[in-house]
Every structure is written in structure tokens, then in C-alpha cells.
């Protein structure tokens, strides 16, 4: 992986290791899976996370529920509400993260959510909790580079990656600002819209990924609207270093509740096989 800086090879972390895997000397795309913490309950989440790892997920994103998830479609909105209705607190989410880190020392864990729950006790508090819980990266939907001071410096100070989003509206003039201060990977939101809705044209993803990778020293993962193994394989084949699947897994939690791990593991396995063998 020549894109990784020498610095990163000297000081490998779990995120860069997840993107450095190869099959027969060819870089292997990573499967990134998302579920909402505490959905349907905090007690049910560890088994669901374990199912993702057993199914072959390379990176796990754990969604922090928020009352007002304005970037999310119906599936993840409902997951947020189920989680909050069952009483999920920020303390409970960090307990889930610590438990995950103990059970899965190698699998990168990324927290994804909205600015207010992340910054409400101050960015330093949040960054310290992430660091202590073994969280590798943070994706904050509503803190763009312009407002980086609210989260970025605190995360960088403790070595937790700030993973930024790039979108179809992020033009060449803006991309350097998005990349500045971000690490781990760049999350390309392949459609202008909300999670779990329409699917991007593979050709447009291919063009965008090529453009982003030309400017980026960190891997590029693609998400939003990727639901099936076939779609995931197509995105990986289009050059993405990673493919993110969220709503399809969250739908299984909605359907099966605490009994979801079996179905989650099966879908994750199918997705992982498709993504890993796409190139």
C-alpha cells in the first residue's frame, strides 16, 4: 500500500492495518459495518457486534444515538429512537466500546454520530473517553472542517482518528480542507442525500474514488445506499479501499431485535466475501 505514509508503516494502528491486508499481493478492500449502539437495548449490542466480527467485518462503526439524526434515513432514525427509548446513555456506549475492545483486540472500532452528544461535556472529555475505551476513530456528521476546533484538536491530541466525510458536492477546491487534519480513512458519501436511500451509479463512484485517491494519502471508503453483497462488490471493484454497509444491517436489528445476531452474521459474511474477492 504505497498510499500509506512511511510514518504510518512505522507506527501501525488498527485502522491502517485493516486497509493494509492483501490477497495474493493485491490490496484487499475492507468491509466496514455500521450498527447503532443500544439498538434495541445496550444488553443486546455486544452479541450483534460479535456477529459483525465473526461474519468478517474489517472495521466496525458504532452509531451513537441522537434525538435528531438529520442526516439519516428512516431505518437509522428508527434505530436511534429504539436505542434512546431503551435508555442508552453515553456512559453505556463507552462501556460497550470497552467490552468490544477486550473481546476483539484487533478489530478497529469507530464511533459515528452527531456533534451535540460528542461535545456536550467538552471535546477533551469525549476524546479521553474514546482513548481509554480503545476507540480508533470518530465520524461526526455535523462538524465540517470549518468548525474543526470543536472536536478535531482534542481527538488528535490523544491519537484518535478524525474521519471526515467527502460528498459529491466536495469539489477539488474544497477537498484539501476536508483532508487536512483527518486520518484513518476518508469516508466518501456516494449520494447527496440521507443514509439508506438511493444507490449511487457505479460509474460515478469510480470517477469520484479515483479523484479522491489522487489527492488523499489515506484510504477512501464508500458508503450510503450500499445494501447487498452485489452492490458492495461493485463499489469495491470500482476502486474503493473500503465499503460501508449500515442501513441493511440496522434493518435486520429492527426485524429480529435481540435475536438479530444470526441474520447479522450471515449478511456480514456474504458482504465480506463479496468485498474481499472483488478485485
Amino acid at each position, binding site marked *: 500500500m504505497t498510499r500509506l505514509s512511511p510514518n504510518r508503516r512505522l507506527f501501525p494502528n488498527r485502522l491502517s492495518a485493516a486497509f493494509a491486508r492483501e490477497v495474493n499481493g493485491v490490496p484487499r478492500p475492507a468491509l466496514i459495518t455500521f450498527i447503532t449502539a443500544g439498538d434495541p437495548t445496550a444488553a443486546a449490542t455486544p452479541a450483534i457486534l460479535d456477529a459483525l466480527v465473526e461474519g468478517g467485518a474489517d472495521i466496525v462503526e458504532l452509531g451513537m444515538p441522537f434525538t435528531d439524526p438529520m442526516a439519516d434515513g428512516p431505518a437509522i432514525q428508527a434505530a436511534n429512537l429504539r436505542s434512546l427509548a431503551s435508555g442508552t446513555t453515553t456512559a453505556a456506549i463507552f462501556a460497550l466500546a470497552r467490552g468490544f475492545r477486550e473481546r476483539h483486540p484487533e478489530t478497529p472500532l469507530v464511533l459515528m454520530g452527531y456533534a451535540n452528544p460528542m461535545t456536550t461535556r467538552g471535546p477533551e472529555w469525549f476524546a479521553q473517553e474514546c482513548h481509554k475505551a480503545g476507540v480508533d476513530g470518530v465520524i461526526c456528521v455535523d462538524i465540517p472542517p470549518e468548525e474543526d476546533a470543536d472536536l478535531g484538536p482534542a481527538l488528535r491530541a490523544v491519537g484518535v482518528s478524525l474521519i471526515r466525510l467527502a460528498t459529491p458536492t466536495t469539489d477539488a477546491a474544497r477537498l484539501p480542507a476536508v483532508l487536512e487534519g483527518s486520518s484513518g480513512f476518508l469516508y466518501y458519501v456516494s449520494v447527496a*442525500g440521507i443514509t439508506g436511500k438511493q444507490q449511487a451509479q457505479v460509474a460515478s463512484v469510480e470517477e469520484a474514488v479515483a479523484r479522491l485517491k489522487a489527492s488523499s494519502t489515506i484510504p477512501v471508503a464508500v458508503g450510503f445506499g450500499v445494501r447487498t453483497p452485489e452492490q458492495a462488490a461493485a463499489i469495491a471493484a470500482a476502486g474503493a479501499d473500503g465499503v460501508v454497509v449500515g442501513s441493511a444491517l440496522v434493518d435486520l436489528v429492527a426485524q429480529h431485535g435481540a435475536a438479530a445476531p444470526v441474520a447479522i452474521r450471515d449478511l456480514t459474511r456474504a458482504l465480506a466475501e463479496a468485498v474481499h474477492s472483488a478485485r
Partner: protein
Amino acid sequence: MTAPAPNSFRTQPDANGHFGQFGGRYVSETLMPLILELEREYTRAKADPAFAAEFEDLLEHYVGRPSPLYYAPRLTEALRQSAAEGLGAQVWFKRDELNHTGAHKINNCIGQILLAMRMGKTRIIAETGAGQHGVATATVCARFGLPCVIYMGAKDVERQQPNVFRMKLLGAEVIPVTSGANTLKDAMNEALRDWVANIHDTFYIIGTAAGPHPYPELVRDFQSVIGKEARAQLLSRTGRLPDLLVAAIGGGSNAIGLFHPFLDDPSVKMLGVEAAGHGLDKEHAASLAGGRPGILHGNKTYLLQDEDGQITEAHSISAGLDYPGIGPEHSWLRDVGRVDYTSVTDTEALDAFQLLCRTEGIIPALEPSHAIAAVAKVAPTMPRDAIILANLCGRGDKDIFTVADALGAKL
């Protein structure tokens, strides 16, 4: 306040859209380029005399501005009944309830739709709570022939049927929002979801002086016509400035519109009135009194929230004040101490509503009824020659069902 007073209170926000620590642009990356383009276009529009000319022409001939400035003699006398000797300030009203569509909301909608057309946008979306901003948006869309989609919490759709029908008559599509708690903040979430998926052709007309920069600034600028007119009208009628300005605050657009042109007049005190609902120790909508700074809907401001930063539901009898946040400039004006903020309960607002009906023959909306309730408390403590200028930001036709219900009357 320990922070040194700035030389001027009228130079906010800074280049990055911050009012002190408040405001900003807390939006997803998809919206960020659009927000920046809106800022550039607004800067160009401000420098374009043709934009100002068209805005002012529409305000005069379509909205019916300037709205009158009215001295309320019987209300003033009624409040003097409980005042000590020599006390009992004069009460004056800025009559923005006489605007076309019945509230101040139309001022801002005219400005924003002109911006939308400058930007080549062909579809308008908006959120609404009570329906006043929805009606004003639907009105300007009809006037300029643009399709209009209004997001409204399903609960609000049910309790504001007359305004829903008005919007439909005006050609708007009203979409009931069933996500979250089915109220205004969820309507705003849904409008943001629509916008992010339709950025190329859609302009989001935000109804209050909140949201990501430059919305708080441009909404304030469009609403400042209220304070500019009031200042000139009072000077010409009395030769002096008011001693106290009073306005109700939900998001705070009518209040900032009245206050802003007076901010650098040191003799003019200002009072913003939040909705205390059932009481500050119960369900309410007073973000400054009962909240703390946080990030929601694109800006940093005082929010009603729990210790984990989850947003809590607001409550007010006035659907227009029923929002868990407040415009960021108000958060700043409170922290620097330039404006005082207080709150009044549902019951106090209902009393003030009836008081104005009977003393002045004006049926106010429940939003300015909160301002009137605060006036009723403070006027008897001020000298008889003092002038209180309150903003009557909306008329009460839309609220008669709510008021009847609260008073136990059957219609």
C-alpha cells in the same frame, strides 16, 4: 458579565458566522458548499441596489409596510391601576400583525425568495410549527410561481388545520412529519433531509434567525425592517428613543428584528421573553432560562437538552415558541449582557391575550401575548414618562381554537 463590552453590538457575526462562541456552520459536508454559495450570493445581494429596491418595493406594496406604530392608551391606563404614584410606563406597539399574512414572518420570506431566484433555484422548501412561516412561504411561492413543499410535524398538522388549509389554497404541498416527536424540530430535521437530497434545485427558506451561517444573519437583516421603522417612527412622533423594547422569543426572529437597529443606543434597554410553558420547573420552551450551549440544526446556541446532549421536547401553548433552541445572536446578546431575557408561562400569556383584546380591541397571537405579559409585569415599575415599545409580531386569528380550548369555551 466579566467580558469587556464590544465597541459595537451590531458587527456580529464574524467572517466565519460566529456570534462570540455561538452560531457557526454545523452541517453535513453535502450542505457545506451550498451554505458557502448562499453566503457569497447574500454578500453580492447586499451590495446590489437592485436587490434592496425590489425587497423594499415588495415590502411596501405587497406586505403593506411600514406597519403602524401605535400608542396603546387603555392598556397603559389599565397597567397604571396597579402602579405606585408616578409609575406606569407608556406602552407602544409595533403593529407587525397587520402585515399581509398576519405576522412578521413574511418580511423574511420576501428576502429569501429573492435570494433563491438570484441563485437560480426553482423549488422552495420550509419547515413550520404553528403554520405562520409555512403560510408566509407558501404565499411568496405563489407570488413568484415556484413550487413549495412545507414540512410540518404531524401533531402540528392536526392542531393547526386552518393554516394547513391556507397553505394548500396557496398551492403548497404540506408534508406531515411522523419522525421523532412529530413537532417543529422534527419538521426541521425532515426539511434538512429533503434539502441534502435536492441541493441542486432547492432553496430552504428557514423561518427564524437560527440554522447555519448565513441564515441567522440574513434573517436578522430582513427582519430588521421592524426595528428600523420603529426607531424612525418613534423619533418622529415623540422626539425620543424608547426606554425599553420587549419581544417574544421562540427562535427569536421578530425580537432580533426589533432589537438590532437599537443595539448601539445605550439608553435603550431590551427584554426578550421566552415561553415558560407550564413553568420553568416543568415542561417549557425557555432555552436561555433552562438550557445550556450545544449544537443543533446547524448552529451552536442554548438548547434544552439532557446531560448526554440529547435534545428534550419543548412545550408552549404557543406553537410558534415551541422549539428547544434559540437563535445564536440571542445567546450571544445574553452572555455579553446587552439584552435581558425573561420568561412567562402559558397562563400568564393567556391572561395577557385577553387583556389586549379587551383594552385595545386587538386580538394578538399567542406569541406576542408572551411579550404583552412581560410588559404587564414591568410597566408598573417604570416611570410614567418612560416608553415601552413591544413588538406585536402576529395576530391571533390562528389561535382562537387553542385559546377557546384553554379557556374551556366550546366553538
